[in-house]
């Protein structure tokens, strides 16, 4: 039965200001890069494309027919607004029909058009994908730093919470080497905080005393070596694939050990993995639901590109 609640209010302005600042910053940084990217991409269109455009220009001016057919292709003038539309539409339809008929009678030119169309689609798609990748990469660089700081803040809170419990036991006179059921307690903490990959308690000289299950960690020997060399000058430091956050454990007025919490270093990679997992889930569900594969795949690719890791 609920008999009350704990309520914590945290600063809205600071958060909004923080992420808005990051948003503005990334847009500013993107400004120069995006322009240069578009300009570079457009300007670097090969001469071949330009040549094709010239062919197309000729086609638009009614010279197509003169190459393979005696009958000239009618002018493909497009209607414009207002009265122009009213006057132009019937004529436009008529001319379009005639142009289509002339093109159909000339397979070479029709093929050239299709070829041009295909190349244009490829060019635009290529530029789009490159631009999207560039924008996402730059945004990811900026956002990763900010998000990592947030995650480390959370890990430090968890560390402080665990250290308080251990220090309370120490104040009751339990020796540091003989804390009971510590592994189970650490496992429970790890379970409650899925982002945490390991929790290790060491002596000041880095000897491992208590820990969660470490069998799933990669390069455990390297991690042990790094913890042994831990000097406490920094609260958080990257060790291999993990960000290690250390909290001092004190008792009876002296430093008794370190509490180390580790979480995977690459926030962006984890978020991307989550997104890919979502997409795979949808793809598996598609088979049952009969949704079109290409639509799902396109949506998935778009989501990866647009999610920008963050």
């Amino acid at each position, binding site marked *: *039965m*609920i*008999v*009350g*609640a*704990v*309520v*914590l*209010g*945290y*600063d*809205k*302005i*600071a*958060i909004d200001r*923080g*992420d808005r600042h990051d*948003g503005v910053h*990334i*847009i500013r940084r*993107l400004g120069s890069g995006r322009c240069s990217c*578009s300009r570079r991409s457009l300007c670097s269109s090969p001469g071949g494309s*330009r040549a094709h*455009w010239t062919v*197309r220009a000729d086609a*638009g*001016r009614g010279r197509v027919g003169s190459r393979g057919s005696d009958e000239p292709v009618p*002018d*493909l*003038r*497009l209607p*414009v*607004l207002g009265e*122009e539309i009213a006057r132009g539409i019937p004529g436009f339809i008529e001319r379009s029909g005639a142009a289509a008929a002339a093109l159909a009678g000339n397979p070479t030119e029709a093929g050239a058009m299709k070829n041009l169309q295909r190349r*244009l689609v490829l060019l*635009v798609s290529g*530029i*789009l994908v490159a*631009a*999207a990748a560039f*924008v*996402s990469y730059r*945004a990811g660089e900026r*956002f990763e730093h*900010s*998000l990592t700081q*947030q*995650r480390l*803040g*959370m890990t430090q*809170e968890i560390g*402080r*919470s665990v250290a308080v419990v251990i220090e309370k036991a120490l104040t009751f006179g339990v020796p540091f080497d003989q804390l009971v059921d510590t592994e189970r307690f650490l496992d429970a903490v790890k379970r*409650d*905080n899925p982002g945490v990959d390991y929790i290790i308690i060491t002596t000041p000289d880095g000897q491992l005393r208590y820990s969660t299950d470490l069998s799933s960690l990669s390069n455990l020997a390297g991690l042990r070596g790094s913890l042994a060399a831990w000097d406490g000058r920094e609260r958080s430091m990257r060790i291999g694939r993990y960000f290690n956050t250390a909290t001092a454990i004190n008792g009876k007025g002296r430093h008794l050990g370190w509490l180390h919490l580790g979480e995977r270093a690459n926030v962006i990679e984890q*978020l991307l993995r989550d997104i890919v997992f979502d997409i795979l889930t949808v793809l598996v569900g598609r088979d049952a639901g009969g949704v079109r594969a290409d639509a799902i795949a396109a949506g998935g690719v778009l989501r990866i590109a*647009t*999610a*920008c890791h*963050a």
Partner: protein
Amino acid sequence: MTWLLLGRRSAPLWLRLGLPISLIIALAIGFISFLNYYNYRKTYQQLNVARIMVVARDLRQAIESGLNVGLAPRSNTQLATSLAVAKDHTEGVRFAAIIDEAAKKLVEVGGAAANQDWLQRLKSAGEELSWLGEDDDTYQVGLPYRTASA
């Protein structure tokens, strides 16, 4: 725009093709940037909530430990100290409060605005372990505490 669409008198074909292509690319990049930013903002706020939640869970555990031995939050003199420590050590926390089932403040550190919807939140909490709320100045995390018989 008409000069773009007209046939013979119009702009060159590269311009007629290039303009729409550039426009599409610009729109796509704008859309991607928009999605990126909101995705980032959502993740940032989730991490913030997770950080505050760690502190709030500790406080709830302290309250429930007291309740298990028959110590009501109102009589638990350690809670005010715990709230003060939580507020001072946690970046960004503006207030911490413990309320009863009628949403009346039992212990409070920092200043919460007067008109809060905590009573409604408590009533609709059910089996929920937490709620997220906000007022004009703060985002809020609320964790209902329960008696052991529940």
